[in-house]
């Protein structure tokens, strides 16, 4: 199975006065062509950094000291600035979080769409105008609103416009960073529906960065769970969510309202992720894990439990016994030191 994107041992560090912050510290996962992959974890686990690092647009203090990300046969990490520019938006595009500022506030929405179509897509103004209208139709916006300013759009409309922008040049992979986080639940679902439908119709692949397990369950084919800069579990959505292997994934399921198990008790994972400045040795989740054992002082490797389902935990083989315990609130309460 040739993946569209293959991330191997990827690390992203931020230089600070106190030393490097290891925001992403050896990430491994694949994105098959034409699938939606959810990248999920608590805030500060490195998932957004990872998404932006793949685009190659990061703050000046960020660097990629190790690893590779092979996309359509080329390593994104090793690309020259010029090669990357060629690739950006044409093969690889980005949908930002629904912040007001993701669209230039002093340019009409249509102009921002036209800019990409003419300057990056090489379309004539005439062709670009037609394509812009078509793109707006595709994401369910009225083409007349191309002449609006960004502030005249609601949050959901802005998100649709951002998706239209990302689709403009028909990329192979679209990275969406918390695309529905700032929206209310009804609009969330509308936007996710648009994304799912377009993905199916256009056959592109997506990475959907989110902290919300429910979003993953609703929209994704595969899921990659990140904790403290590392991938702790990955696999098909059904396999991972129905039979999680890693205690962190089990905890994450408890902490979010589930789409199917409505009415279930919400159990937060106590504590917070470790500092990425001096991450602890061994399993990074051990300090918050109710099932931690002596062996967790060593780093658990990401192993394949089934051909398509990976997890990084010493007690993977006991997952079936641990799962019922993880569903009880008392298990998690006992960890608090």
């Amino acid at each position, binding site marked *: 199975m040739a993946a569209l994107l293959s991330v191997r041992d990827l690390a992203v560090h931020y230089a600070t006065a106190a030393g490097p912050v290891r925001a992403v510290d050896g990430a491994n996962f694949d994105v098959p062509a034409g699938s939606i992959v959810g990248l999920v974890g608590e805030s500060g686990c490195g998932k957004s950094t990872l998404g932006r690092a793949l685009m190659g647009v990061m703050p000046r203090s960020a660097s990629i000291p190790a690893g590779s990300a092979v996309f359509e046969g080329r390593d994104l990490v090793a690309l020259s600035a010029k090669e990357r*520019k060629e690739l950006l938006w044409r093969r690889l595009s980005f949908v930002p979080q629904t912040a007001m500022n*993701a669209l*230039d506030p002093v340019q009409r929405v249509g102009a921002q769409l036209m800019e990409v179509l003419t300057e990056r897509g090489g379309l004539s103004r005439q062709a670009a105008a037609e394509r812009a209208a078509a793109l707006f139709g595709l994401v369910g916006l009225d083409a007349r609103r191309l002449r609006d*300013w960004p502030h*005249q759009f*609601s949050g959901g409309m802005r998100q649709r416009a951002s998706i239209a922008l990302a689709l403009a040049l028909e990329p192979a992979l679209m990275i969406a960073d918390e695309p529905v986080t700032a929206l209310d639940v009804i609009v969330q679902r509308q936007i996710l529906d648009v994304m799912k439908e377009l993905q199916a119709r256009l056959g592109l692949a997506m990475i959907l960065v989110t902290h919300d397990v429910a979003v993953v369950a609703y929209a994704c084919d595969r899921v990659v769970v990140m904790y403290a800069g590392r991938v702790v579990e990955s696999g098909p959505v059904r396999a991972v969510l129905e039979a999680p292997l890693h205690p962190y994934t089990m905890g994450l399921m408890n902490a979010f309202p589930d789409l199917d198990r409505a009415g279930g008790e919400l159990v937060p994972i106590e504590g917070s992720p470790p500092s990425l400045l001096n991450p602890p040795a061994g399993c990074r989740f051990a300090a918050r894990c109710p099932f931690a054992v002596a062996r967790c002082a060593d780093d658990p490797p990401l192993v394949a439990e089934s051909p398509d389902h990976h997890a990084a935990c010493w007690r993977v083989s006991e997952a079936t016994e641990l799962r019922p315990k993880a569903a009880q609130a008392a298990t998690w309460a006992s960890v608090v030191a």
Partner: protein
Amino acid sequence: MKRVLGRLGHAAFVLWAVASLTFIMFRLMPGDPTLNFLSESFSEEMRAALLTSFGLDKPLPEQYVLYLGSLLRGDLGVSFLQKKPVLDILLDALPNTVALTVTALVVAYAFGIIAGAFLAFARGSVTEGIAIPAALITRAAPEFWLGMILLAWLSFAWGIFPSSGANEAGSEFTSEWARLTSADFLWHLTLPALTLALYLQGLPLLLMRATMLEVLNDEFIVMARMKGLSRWAIVMRHAARNALLPVATAFALGLGSSFGGNVVIETVFSWPGLGRVLVSAVQGADYPLAQGAFILIAAVLVTMNMVADLLYAWLDPRVSVGARR
């Protein structure tokens, strides 16, 4: 449109208040306005006749009504000392002040915007370490002192530029426009305009740098980079256009305030503009002239404050175009 009308009404209110304040200032202050004007040899009748001719014998409320009426007609009275209509004197001085202010501001803002944008990209560099303190120093220096240094250096020591006036004495021109565009005038203009520009450039420079740094961190700039747009398009079309909003407002405000602030520069360079008219009128207790010059300067200030507001609203769609759903 409603906004423009509202802002016009507001400006009219402020102008009325400033005019009334001016009236009070000039009438109720201690000292007899005629004292300086009248020589000892004047008889009581002559004095009374003069007071009547200036309307100073009437009760204050009546004077106030007459004053507002003539202001509306553009009649600013007659100068005590020059015996000419105040308006004529002011209109003679106006082109010189406009030429000086506009030239200096355009030079200062052109330089400040470019240098400020450049500095936003040169964070932490040696250039920044020198340029920012230098900009702060020019903001901290009294403008007349900057003028004195340039005068002593470029005019007296090196003899490059003339030291005073707007034109060579005795030169004649076919029209005011011919005078303002003559090489002689521009030659005289260089030093005062340079001084004023030197004093003014710090504000647009620091403002442009600060807003540029803020804008460059905005998500839409990150998005522009992700789109693979050219550096030129990112900086000029997205960053600069956003960063220029406050700078454009500052330009309009600066036009209004340096119009009256030119007082010192015009004195240093003996530049025959409004500021000097005001200073000499105040020194010579020529009250109608001082009052007229003050009101004109205030009117320009109030107008430019209004223009700055409207300009900002017009440039920023978030203000000018209401949200719709």
